């Protein structure tokens, strides 16, 4: 099976190298020190918190926005195809480029966001969205909602379309309200799809790099420094290859643990 050999070569071998690196000293020899250092590294702890806020915030908002739009698209509206295509557009843009688009929209003086909010009277001074340590992370999350909701929306829409119409008709005969229908038919039917959407989205969001790199590069200070950025900097800015490998392994373990139920469910279905 040469194909399997190839898999081992392009994936297995680098992983072994990463593990070996994380257990090495810069000048050779084995050590656990790279891992032992982690709890004391305040930048790592910060990065861990930022990552969880970023992933949690974006996944939750993708789900809420995606679900609302999927419901609207599932209603009997005209021009469904058109709206569906438009709603998918942001997903088609590479995240590096959506980061650039939003960075300029957030521009304090020349950006459209301040301009609109100023003329609506919502704010009365130029707000430094990406330069303010309290606003930077929410601003990045908000930009990512635009980029990331379509994927969740598409999965949920597929789920909504698979719910048998008879269930709603039966509920109507029984005189159920729209809210009751939603609670007792839509939500139970959608449970599986929601789990799949959240699982896949979470994995993608843990890997997110280009968007944040181009919006803030982790700043101001380290308030938007997600783990993938921190690992990158440890590797290629500070050249701590061994320490960077250890952080990357911790990130990988977090992701594997989180995705274990999903992987297990998929394999069981085989």
């Amino acid at each position, binding site marked *: 099976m040469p194909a399997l050999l190839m898999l081992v070569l392009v994936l297995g071998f*680098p992983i072994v190298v990463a593990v070996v690196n994380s257990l090495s000293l810069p000048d050779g020899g084995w050590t656990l020190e790279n891992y032992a250092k982690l709890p004391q590294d305040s930048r790592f702890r910060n990065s861990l918190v930022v990552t969880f806020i970023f992933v949690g915030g974006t996944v939750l908002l993708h789900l809420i926005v995606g679900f609302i739009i999927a419901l609207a698209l599932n209603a009997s*509206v005209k021009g469904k195809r058109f709206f569906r295509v438009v709603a998918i557009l942001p997903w088609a843009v590479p995240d590096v480029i959506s980061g650039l688009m939003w960075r300029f929209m957030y521009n304090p003086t020349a950006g459209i966001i301040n301009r609109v909010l100023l003329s609506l009277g919502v704010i009365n001074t130029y707000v430094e969205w990406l330069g303010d340590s309290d606003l930077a992370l929410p601003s990045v999350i908000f930009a990512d909602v635009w980029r990331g909701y379509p994927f969740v929306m598409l999965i949920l829409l597929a789920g909504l379309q698979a719910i048998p119409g008879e269930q709603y008709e039966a509920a109507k005969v029984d005189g159920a309200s729209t809210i009751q229908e939603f609670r007792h038919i839509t939500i139970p039917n959608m449970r599986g799809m929601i789990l799949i959407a959240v699982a896949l989205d979470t994995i993608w969001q843990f890997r997110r790099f280009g968007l944040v790199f181009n919006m803030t590069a982790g700043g101001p200070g380290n308030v938007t420094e997600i783990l993938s950025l921190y690992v990158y900097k440890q590797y290629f800015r500070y050249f701590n290859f061994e320490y960077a490998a250890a952080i990357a392994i911790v990130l*990988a373990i977090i992701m*594997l643990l989180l995705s274990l139920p999903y992987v297990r469910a998929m394999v069981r279905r085989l």
Partner: protein
Amino acid sequence: MKRRLQPGIIIAYVILGLVLLYTITPFLWMIFTSLKTDQEAVAIPPTLWPQEPTIEAYIQILIWGNFPIWFLNSTIISLGTALFSTMIGSFAGYGFSRFGFRGRATLIGIILASQMLPGVLLVGPYFKMLSTVGLYNTYPGLILAFTAITLPFSTWMLKGFIDSVPEELDDAAKIDGCTPLGAYLKVILPLIAPGMVATVIFAFLLAWGDLLWVLVLTSGEKMTTVTLGLTRLVTQFRIIWPQLMAGSMIGALPPLILYLLLQNYLVEGMTAGAVKE
């Protein structure tokens, strides 16, 4: 019954109207900015649409800048990755789909799990490996590295497509004297052609949008891709927004066109069979 639905429909239209505004605005802002002069783009307060529309920014990046080289590099690397990864993925997918061997379930689990690995775990080792064998800053090196990211997806997607081909068909071919490889080439390949196309495009898009790997595995202008080139423009001291937005616009076009043409396939691929209950 129709009447009772009415308020819901109105709400749906309102939501869809807002969605339209929300999704389109960033695109319009990008296009408008790309058509402004350098001064107008940073005017305070900003103008909404260009007062004197000009394609100066496009001319600057396309004729005087290195953008065409970046575009060519992105195309070569993404296309190379897509073809290589789909070829190997289809063989691996064929193996997983048709041959029962010991540890098959475990291996499939490993492939699935390897999709969950963060890219930053692999960039360090790849930097070392490619430097050692002299493939740093080369097309083959980048294609190989990207394949590490796309191959698990490609394998999983193609396994799904091959699963949907009835096994009796390749059995029939084998009775006619085909080898497993022959059955694969003559029977399965033509049937999964649409799936192959989807997989090729999916890998292409993953590679096209990447920044991390090119950042780490290239140096200088020679191997710069669109994403990396734009990133360099934005980290410069003076950012020329119309040029940056013109570049973003052109850089986003290939994926936009591919997504629009193949959205159904891609959704199926992204969710990798998960949606099929």
